[in-house]
């Protein structure tokens, strides 16, 4: 079968169509990235009067710092947990909603609307649930003898951050999983139902492999979500004061660059973060994508 090809009358025309998008990417991504890489090699006075070339010392300073390594460790755990729970709960709800015949749209709407909430608002709502003085979750936990102190206790704050971040991301995963499930042909399902009586087994051997492309896409989206988009939630939860609370790497970049005015150190951290994301993406595409069947 011959591949379909769109023919352009002029060889420049496709580039012209791409130009606006490329310009935006250049201005808002490549240009700042190049600047960040450049300033990560300098120690700069905040007002821009002088910059001293310091080579790799911004990087070595950061990587030697035990505080930074601690934040990196927390970021890894946080990302793994948020991604795992957001994906698995989203999938579970999608499978259950897909099985519902009556009131189907009501369930979907109820689950989806959370996605319309902006992250800082989600953080704010979460903060109210976990508030030391008025939070209902805190009241509930006290019944079981757990005195939750968000903003004071490292573990409790981490717990609250993960719960709110997961809660915020579930609807997104739910939408994609649900449409993925509904894209599975009825004939396949019927055939599976004849071959295999156990619902769980049917799910593992037939449905899940067919959902793999969706799941892979969501995995990457969720990892980047946990790494970057949870910024607003963290900001509201720690109320601008990291203190003895857990924060992620991207929040540390903000703290050092915008609050501490250490531009060189902050740039070095953002370059490190870029490298981590790059490595992670390559890893995902190389290793995990092999197990994904698209057709």
């Amino acid at each position, binding site marked *: 079968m011959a591949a379909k090809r769109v023919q352009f009358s002029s060889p420049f025309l496709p580039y012209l169509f791409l130009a606006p998008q490329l310009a935006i990417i250049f201005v808002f991504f490549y240009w700042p990235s190049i600047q960040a890489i450049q300033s990560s090699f300098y*120690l*700069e*006075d*905040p*007002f*821009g*009067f*002088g910059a*001293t070339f*310091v080579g790799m010392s911004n990087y070595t*300073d950061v990587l030697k*710092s035990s*505080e930074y390594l601690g934040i990196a460790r927390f970021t890894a755990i946080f990302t793994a947990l948020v991604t795992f729970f957001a994906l698995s709960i989203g999938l579970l709800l999608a499978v259950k909603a897909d099985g519902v015949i009556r009131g189907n749209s009501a369930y979907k709407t109820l689950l989806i609307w959370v996605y319309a909430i902006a992250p800082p608002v989600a953080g704010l709502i979460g903060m109210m649930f976990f508030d*030391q*003085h008025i939070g209902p979750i805190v009241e509930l936990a006290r019944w079981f003898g757990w005195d939750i*102190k968000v*903003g*004071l*206790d*490292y573990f409790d704050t981490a717990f609250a951050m993960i719960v709110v971040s997961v809660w915020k991301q579930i609807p997104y995963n739910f939408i994609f999983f649900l449409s993925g499930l509904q894209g599975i042909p009825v004939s396949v399902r019927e055939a599976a139902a004849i071959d295999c009586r156990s619902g769980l087994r049917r799910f593992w051997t037939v449905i899940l492999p067919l959902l793999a492309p969706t799941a892979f896409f969501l995995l990457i989206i969720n990892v980047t979500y946990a790494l970057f988009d949870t910024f607003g939630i963290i900001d509201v939860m720690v*109320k*601008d*004061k*990291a*203190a*003895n*609370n857990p924060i992620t790497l991207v929040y540390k970049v903000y*703290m*050092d660059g*915008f*609050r*501490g*005015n*250490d531009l*060189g*150190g902050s740039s070095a951290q953002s370059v490190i973060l870029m490298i981590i994301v790059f490595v992670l993406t390559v890893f995902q595409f190389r290793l995990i994508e092999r197990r994904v069947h698209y057709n």
Partner: protein
Amino acid sequence: MLKTISLAALALAFSTTASFAATNITWWHGMAGRNGEVINEVAQKFNASQSACALTPVSKGTYEEALASGIAAFRSGEQPNILQVFDAGAATIINAKGAVIPAEDLINKAGYNFDRNAFIDGVRYFYADAEGKFVGMPFNSSAPIMYINDEALKKAGVEAPKTWEEFEAIAPKLKGAGFIPLVQSQLTWQFTENFFSRNNVQFATNNNGYDSVVDTKLNVTDPNLEMMFEKLKAWKDQGHFAFYGAGWNDNQKVFEEGKAALWIGSSGSFGGLQKTAQMPFSATFLPYWGSIKGAGTNSFIGGAALFAMSGKSDEENKCVARFFQFLTSPEIQYFYHKSTGYVAITKAAYELAEKDGYYKEKPVAEVGIKQLLLPAGEWSKGYRLGFYPQIREIMEREYGRIFSGETTVKDALETIENEGNELLARFAKTAG
């Protein structure tokens, strides 16, 4: 016909612009809510008082955000005429030589008289250079003071403590009466920076950082500060002190609800506290240690100052000077003092408020100023430390770890000193 009309319109347009040929100046600040509204009122008063200059205040969010936007604007040549910078950011802007015109030079150049002695003692040095020349113009100034839940003290039958020794004596009685004896709202400000000033202990080498940024080192492992935090930890374990986290309001709330007997907050909290406190309250000075020799000196100011940014025309700079003069006039200072709870920064304004009987009506409003007017010690003038907002972060983290039992006081202070000194050395390189 059309031509005449348009000509007339043109003439009219010219005449109106001529009559409103005011020099426009902008003022970026980091205040929101009620305090932001008061700033707009101050600007309106200034614009109404004369016709040569028109001032536009712009809120840039929080203190940190205002400083960050001011820096970004300066780098692209779009800086405002006046930038409000908070206490912890002072070193950043003062050490950036050429970013600002020292307020004193600006005012003198515009032909006004500038008298350093007109300012109250605790205010005079904080935004000045080592020679005492004002670099920033102190604007909203506050002092950490101790608010008192009158009912709690009455119930326990005790007097408000002047020293921490006295506090130790009354704390069990306050606890026995069913109150949390002590809470506070910002450990770095109240139990570090102002601990050093109130007890007259050196905070950092190089004259607390005023003399030079090179080789400046923190002195937070000082045995006196170690003793303070050992005590705080012990008080917390005995239930004499409670800590609800680094957030200001988490700690203030307990006092507002009448659960705590004593709360160390800002003199600038007075305005809001009058509305939120659910019980009668009064206030007194931040306690000091009777056991430390020479303790009991004044505390220095917190809050923020206004900086005149460089790279502006002479005409605009004159307007800024004019505004600074206007701002420090007793009437405006008194107005600002009354509307916000921040202290009056000049002696004349303080006298005006006194004469007006304001302190008879609201004695709490006077506590902050009185504390700033106490005799100054060698180490109560302030501090000038680079990357200081980050150093504060380290302190907040380690203090939190002390109270949760993750670390000892000795280890925590050592960590602060080591990490803080590294930051100071980094800053010296950027400013060098």
